[in-house]
């Protein structure tokens, strides 16, 4: 079948099962946009390429399928660098097509030329500059294969205009769809890991049965490996408590007796402290991120480490494991469960974990997540808003968040009962992530209610994508926790810079969020007093034909607690002031 490179590209995306792509056209990618008109693929026209990237990420988070974005050369391509870096840090499968100037013009500083493969080398799993039309189907297959297997990640494919432009003879090509075997043979250096080493799994089983204070330290890799069910089996079999990192919220139900919630800089006291006092951390698809470990030298000093990960480079990167297991987490957990069952039925016993469990319940009782109730006339407490929202939506609602205090409160106060219901920017911490990510998630899961929780600072970075959402009839809901500040930065300035507030004030009413929402085709609602919270949420939940933005005016003085200050160990966790004084170390960071 004769076609041109542009048609071949769209055909290849269809063959890979692409149902939707997010993008914005321009000169260099124009020829590829023509066959989009004849394609089964739904194209969502964004208002800024960063939006396209985060939408693709949100889509991938919610569905597990790779997100696809397409943009033009030069500024279109550089605008999507942030989402690529974001997807790289959080291992999100994503394929990004960028237009490029014609081959003959590459290197001449042609109009809208930029070396996007050079720029994105450090923030993609891999990237390609395609040099002939015939290569297009193979490269697209390679891109999807790389993005979705092993440790997932973003892959960029840069396409020079001349090989897709039907007016250029160089774009003429046949159609040759490579087989799986051909794709694998074309990537001789790529061998994603599968099962873990059986000996390592046996050693892990032995350590697990011998541990007195074990903790399952579960990271986002569990979700990537679709291993939530296997994890539950492991936890229930061994009765070991589970912490779910910021990237793993929902991988294990918050309502489960064994769930301890989120560890880390703003984790709850029990999750942080039980890791810290543990004698065995079973790290599954987690990467000992600095936001989890605190000062590494003082992290979980008595713990032996079992570390299972699909990426060998994570094993020993931060903390040397006693038992490293390289492979797919789901397969490793399944094998581990089998090994444990064999040992248990052969009569293996575990030490009495009664003292450990009562220590844990003691912490849970004394230091639950809590905030001070508002005094009469105070502005809204952000945590209270989140509790209302949490209790007013279906359990399988998808929650996306921006970056800052609101993100931490959302992760802390939500009750995640299902995997793939929490979408946030963990590794890169990208402000502006939530609105487009929520849109992408809603496109992927139209059956689900999708809320974005955003800060006023974040919202101003990518809000224009609500125009996209209105135009495309994607009814997401946004809760802005408007504290009139870059709140998280304000918190640090309050705590660590002697309340010297430098460049963090934003204003509560500039812009007018309700008018802005309305101008973008959304319903806009403002909430200023506690009595208005519930009716506003109910109203938003009832609207399903357009996006809704609810602006909550929240207390700018509220801080996120607990907190492990940067550079301190997890022993120095600071609980909120009203909880201190129970013999807890409150650290030196001071309030």
């Amino acid at each position, binding site marked *: 079948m004769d076609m041109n490179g542009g048609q071949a590209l769209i055909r290849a995306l269809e063959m890979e099962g692409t149902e939707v792509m997010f993008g914005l056209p321009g000169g260099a990618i124009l020829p590829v946009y023509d066959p989009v008109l004849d394609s089964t693929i739904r194209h969502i026209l964004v208002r800024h390429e960063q939006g396209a990237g985060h939408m693709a990420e949100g889509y991938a988070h919610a569905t597990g399928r790779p997100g696809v974005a397409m943009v033009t050369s030069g500024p279109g391509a550089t605008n999507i660098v942030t989402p690529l870096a974001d997807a790289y840090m959080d291992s999100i499968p994503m394929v990004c097509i960028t237009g490029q100037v014609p081959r003959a013009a590459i290197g001449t500083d042609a109009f809208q030329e930029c070396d996007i493969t050079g720029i994105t080398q*450090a923030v993609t799993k891999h990237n390609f500059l395609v040099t002939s039309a015939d290569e297009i189907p193979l490269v697209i297959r390679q891109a999807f294969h790389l993005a979705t297997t092993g440790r997932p990640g973003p892959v960029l494919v840069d396409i020079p205009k001349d090989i897709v432009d039907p007016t250029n003879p160089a774009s003429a090509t046949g159609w040759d769809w490579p087989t799986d075997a051909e794709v694998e043979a074309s990537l001789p*250096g790529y061998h994603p890991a599968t099962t873990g080493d059986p000996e390592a799994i046996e050693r892990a089983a032995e350590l697990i049965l011998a541990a007195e204070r074990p903790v399952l330290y579960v990271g986002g890799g569990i979700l990537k490996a679709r291993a939530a069910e296997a994890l539950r089996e492991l936890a229930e079999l061994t009765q070991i408590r589970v912490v779910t990192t910021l990237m793993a919220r929902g991988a294990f139900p918050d309502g489960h007796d064994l769930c301890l919630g989120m560890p880390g800089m703003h984790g709850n006291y029990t999750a942080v402290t039980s890791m810290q006092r543990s004698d065995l951390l079973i790290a599954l698809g987690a990467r000992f991120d600095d936001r989890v470990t605190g000062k590494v030298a003082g992290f979980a000093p008595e713990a032996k480490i079992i570390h299972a990960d699909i990426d060998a*480079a994570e094993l020993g990167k931060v903390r040397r494991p006693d038992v490293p297991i390289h492979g797919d987490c789901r397969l490793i957990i399944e094998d581990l469960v089998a090994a444990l069952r064999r040992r248990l039925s052969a009569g293996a016993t575990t030490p009495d974990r009664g003292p450990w469990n009562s220590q844990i319940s003691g912490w849970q009782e004394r230091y639950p997540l809590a905030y001070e109730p508002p005094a009469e006339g105070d502005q809204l407490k952000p945590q209270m808003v989140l509790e209302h929202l949490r209790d007013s939506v279906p359990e399988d609602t998808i929650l996306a968040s921006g970056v800052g205090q609101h993100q931490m409160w959302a992760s802390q106060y939500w009750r995640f009962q299902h995997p793939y219901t929490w979408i946030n920017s963990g590794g890169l911490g990208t402000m502006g992530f939530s609105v487009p990510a929520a849109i992408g998630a809603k496109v992927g899961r139209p059956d689900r209610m999708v809320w974005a929780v955003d800060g006023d600072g974040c919202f101003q970075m990518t809000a224009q994508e609500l125009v996209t959402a209105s135009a495309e009839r994607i009814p997401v809901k946004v809760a802005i926790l408007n504290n009139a500040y870059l709140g998280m930065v304000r918190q640090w300035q309050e705590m660590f810079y002697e309340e010297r507030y430098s460049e963090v004030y934003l204003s509560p009413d500039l812009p007018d969020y309700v008018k802005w929402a309305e101008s973008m085709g959304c319903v806009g609602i403002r909430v200023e007093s506690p009595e208005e919270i519930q009716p506003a949420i109910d109203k938003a939940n009832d609207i399903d034909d357009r996006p809704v933005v609810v602006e909550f005016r929240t207390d700018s003085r509220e801080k996120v607690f607990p907190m492990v200050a940067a550079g301190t160990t997890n022993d120095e966790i600071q609980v909120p002031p009203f909880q201190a004084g129970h013999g807890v170390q409150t650290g030196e960071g001071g309030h």
Partner: protein
Amino acid sequence: MTRRDALPGDPIRHHVLSVLVENRSGVLSRVANLFARRGYNIVSLAVAPTEDEGFSRITVVVDVESAPLEQIVKQLDKLINVIEISELDPRWSVERELLLVTVSATPEVRGQVVELAQIFEGRILAVTHDELTLSLEGHPTKVDDFEEMLRPFGIREIQRTGRVALPRLGAQRGPASATASVPPEAHAADIA
């Protein structure tokens, strides 16, 4: 570059990595960038196609302690175009380097320079009334010594290739960063 030989107990800092890669544009920059990103110095780097023109071999000498090296090697291994990485223990490998040098050699000292070149088995490539261009191929330490001996005469220009290396016959290509302990029992004599 240190001139003294390593003493027992010195942390090993110079590592020779032999990296087999797909022979495509951009691969070298991906490899080099990984070192640059962590601030590690590449001492030398040599790259050329192998017996199979689909692949190239990069011999890279890096200045880094073993623990961070392990991390770099694992990161290198993640590069899609990298096929295989091995660390070459100097005791188990054959290493060579080529040097081109132009030295001052006025008629009064020319004899001494020529004599040095003969002792080191170098070659004279070009002569003018006050300069000589020489080449020398050999083990990198020999090349170091030659360069040192020429220095007093006045080096006008110098270019070294950086080392290239292969495992000795009978030695296995170790996986990178495997703690190499015992050299192979029998190996072919390192002729030359």
